[in-house]
């Protein structure tokens, strides 16, 4: 690697365009919304930067804090479900025969390549009260009910008088379902990657020493794959908290997350200063999560170095 001084002309040619682009189209816009967050609407179209902290104060009102809590909670729940599902799936792929592995991976990744909007829309059909999922549940309910009737318990209406479809749309359940659906491939890949690189001899040693399959799994396998699991958690959680489309389409206005409030400020409510403050707030939350990740990573490496 050479010092930039060796070849200033080439260095600047390569640095210039990217730096310029980032500055103009990334940092300047962020600077502007930072300024706006201290501003007020003085007319329908004008914003004056009065250096007020009003917008930030509004963030700490109960309704917003509740919203923030809901955003974090829904994302965390979705992340956990994703990991619980992703781990066995990744395990299957990682332990499959080499000739199957690329195909299995492709199978998992293909939905990921499909347009996000289309995937979210596809769930709308499935999750309605008369949608496919409820249809299937209804069918199961009917079968189960008939089975009960057959054995003479029909009159007790053990499963209820009528089939009650599960409300997905417009509820937190629907949003979580969609979040999991959306982010599952994201979660599978890092865990797979971590398991793939695992030295099988650890497992063999454990079995050799007499531990059973299940014990081996939890005591040995999961900790060794923990980097992958942690990565999966991060790359699921962070995009999840910034989600706008999923709560919008599936929440139908009932289940707002932070991004929905932000969107509203810029479209219907036309309160750009407040929206800017909220956006920056979301940004800071993201950075805090990343910082936590970095600290955990650093502590892990230090432990490993000292071990």
């Amino acid at each position, binding site marked *: 690697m050479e010092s930039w001084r060796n070849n200033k002309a080439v*260095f600047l040619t390569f640095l210039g365009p990217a730096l310029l682009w980032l500055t103009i*189209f990334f940092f*300047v816009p962020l600077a502007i919304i930072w300024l706006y967050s201290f501003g007020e609407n003085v007319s329908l179209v004008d914003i004056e930067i009065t250096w007020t902290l009003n917008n930030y104060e509004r963030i700490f009102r109960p309704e917003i804090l509740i919203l923030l809590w809901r955003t974090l909670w829904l994302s965390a729940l979705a992340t956990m479900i994703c990991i619980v599902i992703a781990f066995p799936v990744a395990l*299957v792929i990682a332990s499959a025969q080499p000739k199957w592995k690329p195909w299995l991976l492709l199978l998992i990744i293909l939905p990921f390549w499909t347009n996000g909007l289309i995937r979210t829309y596809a769930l709308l059909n499935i999750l309605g009260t008369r*949608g496919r999922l409820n249809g299937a549940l209804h069918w199961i309910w009917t079968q189960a009910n008939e089975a009960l009737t057959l054995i003479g318990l029909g009159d007790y209406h053990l499963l209820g008088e009528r089939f009650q479809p599960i409300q997905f749309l417009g509820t937190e359940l629907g949003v979580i379902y969609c979040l999991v659906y959306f982010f*599952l491939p994201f979660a599978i890949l890092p865990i797979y990657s971590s398991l793939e690189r695992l030295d099988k001899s650890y497992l063999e040693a454990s*079995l050799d020493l007499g531990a059973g399959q299940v014990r081996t799994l939890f005591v040995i396998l999961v900790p060794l794959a923990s980097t992958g699991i942690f990565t999966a958690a991060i790359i699921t959680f962070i995009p999840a908290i910034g989600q706008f489309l999923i709560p919008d389409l599936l929440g139908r206005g009932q289940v707002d997350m932070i991004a929905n409030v932000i969107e509203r400020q810029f479209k219907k409510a036309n309160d750009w200063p407040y929206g800017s403050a909220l956006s920056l707030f979301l940004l800071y939350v993201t950075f805090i999560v990343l910082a936590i990740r970095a600290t955990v990573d650093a502590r892990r490496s230090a432990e490993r170095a000292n071990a």
Partner: protein
Amino acid sequence: MHKSREKPEPFHYHRKLSLQLFFIATIVFLYLPIIVLVIFSFNDSRRGGNIIWRGFTFDYYEKALNNAGLIEAFANSITIAVISTIFSVILGALTAVLLWRFRFSFKPLFEGMVSLPIVIPEICMGVSLAVFFGYFGLWAPPGTPWPFNLANIIIAHITFSFPFAAMVIRTRLATFNRETEEAAKDLGATEFEVFRDILLPHMKPGLIAGALLAFTLSLDDFVVTFFTSAPNAVTFPVKVYSMVRFSVTPEINAASTVLIILTVILTAFAMRFQSFRETSK
């Protein structure tokens, strides 16, 4: 199959029936909605909702293909993807080579800067760009000829794609044998000739992978595009979104199915291309 009776084989989890079923269930979970979407694109649904199957028809495909707004949105998406990919790969390559080749005092800072568009929540990026364009009056005025009316969206897409492209290209550069560069210099090549004849050919697989990634990211994007589009500049996902909010008809399914097929073809093409290069090495 009572595998549990046999001596447990370490790490052969893929053979356990319970896990196999789980895997299949996951696949069903992932694919079923898409399959249903495709099936219902042929649904002869009269009233809104497209929930109950009524009959088979190609009508809605006809409708979709005749929907000028939809076609225009689709064309816009492709145009934006192509143009932003070209610029993303160029900027990404410049950045990757810079980081690979040079030592400079603010290097960690620059690396952090370049990876910010990847970590930042999409809505923050969309919002800040919308505000930026408004503040400096950089919105393409209505009546701007195609493709310049798409400039705002293109700029946004380049901004979030080029760091991804840079990452991919940088991975490829890491495997480069420095001595081949010095050998070329030793044989008399100028800086430019070294770049063109030695470095660029090595980077090619990385450039292609970066281009594919940038293309997909652009085609797929919703949030950032949502904030940087305008009535006269709409992309396919944004158009579909507005249609969905309005009413749910099989027309949307039809349009979506077409896009899915396109994605599959593109992916297949990319994979063919990749494996072809692997075998020819």
